[in-house]
């Protein structure tokens, strides 16, 4: 299914383009401290259109960073801009930004539709009814549930209605703080799908999460925050390959594992080889590129046929573990 098949998303994409096109988030040497505690430490980053995950352990500074970007915290040092405008002390920035806060507190005495409608009115949208209907459809809340009070909603439904309110004015930038909290698997899938489509249509989507699986499934691009610092930035598979001080682990299956292992251990690019109990080899290579090129040549020299070569530690979890450990 493409975005053009879904009227609500297609309209949002068109609106994003009409509102001035893609918007960049730029942090320049940003530091924020609470009293004597440094929560964000000298972070410089640029986030463009697409889906970007802010990843880090609890207390790493992800929420602080999102609050800085959303204009609800002032940088102690440095500057934060979205679409070229500063975010602190600038209510007009909310024409560009949609914010989904982590905390569950919404106006629970309103119905979902009333909440989204009120948000549309606060944005002074020309057609409040149409904007509300579109936003509710985007989060699949255009059902009888929209006319129930929010205090009867499950946590997942509350998250979705918050997202609908954040999207009602078709912002070019959507900031979500731990958006999948409380969602069941089907709701997560739907939300991931929605964010993917918004990202693909030119919106800048930034979400924070401490759950690796969520980030891995939703976003190739990550900003890893550890102890208030930007530990890594970019596509996590690329980040892994640049971590040359950590050997890369490959699972290799061949027609003669022992002969292949003996030949590989003599190569400078290989740090270690181990026969795995269930068959196959686990190879630790110091240089990803050199090993990838040499493996086929060595196999050919030894007359061994390669059956499978899999990078074993290119998952986001491995990258994250290495970054946090270092």
């Amino acid at each position: 299914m493409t975005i053009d098949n879904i009227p609500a998303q297609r309209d949002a994409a068109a609106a994003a383009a009409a509102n001035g096109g893609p918007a960049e988030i730029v942090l320049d040497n940003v530091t924020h401290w609470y009293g004597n505690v440094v929560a964000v430490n000298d972070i410089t980053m640029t986030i463009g259109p697409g889906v970007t995950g802010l990843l880090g352990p609890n207390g790493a500074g992800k929420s602080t960073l999102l609050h800085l970007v959303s204009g609800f915290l002032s940088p102690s040092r440095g500057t934060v801009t979205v679409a070229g405008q500063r975010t602190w002390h600038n209510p007009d920035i909310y024409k560009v930004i949609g914010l989904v806060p982590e905390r569950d507190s919404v106006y629970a005495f309103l119905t979902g539709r009333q909440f989204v409608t009120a948000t549309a009115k606060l944005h002074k949208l020309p057609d409040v009814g149409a904007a509300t209907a579109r936003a509710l459809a985007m989060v699949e809340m255009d059902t009888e549930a929209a006319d129930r009070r929010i205090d009867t909603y499950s946590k997942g439904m509350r998250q979705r209605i918050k997202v609908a309110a954040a999207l009602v004015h078709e912002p070019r930038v959507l900031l979500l703080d731990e958006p999948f909290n409380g969602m069941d698997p089907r709701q997560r899938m739907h939300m991931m799908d929605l964010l993917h489509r918004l990202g693909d249509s030119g919106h800048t989507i930034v979400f924070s999460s401490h759950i690796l699986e969520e980030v891995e499934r939703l976003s190739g691009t990550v900003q890893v925050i550890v102890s208030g610092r930007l530990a890594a930035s970019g596509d996590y598979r690329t980040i892994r390959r640049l971590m040359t001080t950590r050997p890369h682990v490959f699972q290799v299956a061949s027609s003669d594992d022992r002969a292949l292992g003996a030949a590989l251990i003599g190569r400078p690019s290989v740090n270690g080889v181990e026969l795995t109990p269930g068959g196959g080899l686990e190879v630790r290579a110091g240089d990803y590129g050199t090993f990838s090129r040499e493996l086929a040549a060595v196999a050919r020299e030894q007359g061994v046929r390669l059956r499978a070569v899999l990078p074993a530690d290119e998952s986001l979890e491995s990258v994250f573990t290495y970054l946090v450990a270092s």
Partner: protein
Amino acid sequence: MPTVFHPTIAAITLRGLLGRRRSLLIALPPALLLALTIGLRASTNINSSHDFGWPGVVLGQIGLVTLLPLTAMIIGTSVLGTEVDDSSILHLLATPVSRATVLTTKWIVASAATLVFAVVPIAIAAFIGTSGYVDNPGPLDMTFMPIKGDASEAVGVIVAAAVGAVVYSAFFLFLSVVTKRSVAVTLIYILVWESLLTRQVSGLRLLSIGQYELGLADQIGHLPNLGAHLTLGTSVVMSVAFTLFALIYGTRRLQSFRVSGEAA
């Protein structure tokens, strides 16, 4: 120039105020005042000068200085303080609406609710307490000035209560923005500052909303036994200054609203 009133914010605020369980508390102080006034009025002996002393005490010290600020506190801290506490205010603030508009709209709603829930009962109590007396009830011991029994005494109390509702609402909204413990701070203000300190230290009366009200009620209606100490001019000027300070500084604090974040 930001608008002063936003109907959507007002509607949300009003629904939130009247929908919360604590709003039931709003009706309690006025009910007590009315019950007390009716009871005292029924037992008033018009031939005893002592019986003319109670309306000033009840309407001034109970109505204006206790009931009104308590009601304004419940309302004022509800319309903003609870939203700040649970961060639901983020949904209002993450819109292009000016923060001044958010604050003034909530102030108007809080003032209007205080007028309905406190000033109207005080007005009824004022009319019950001051009307129906004969002009010359007989020999009087001059410890007490007899009340006149015309509407001017009640009008003085009502004007003072209306002004108090507006000033208290602005001040309690301001406290909701500057402190997370707005209920505790407002209670300390009412029970310690206004009810205790300003009675003992005359210089502090210049910084007491209750004293501005008593000054207005006394100068307009001349109801005896109000315990007023300030002149009309001082009361008016200080009421305006207090309100402007609370709204302007409250807006500035709301413009710099920070989410309390996690520490690394």
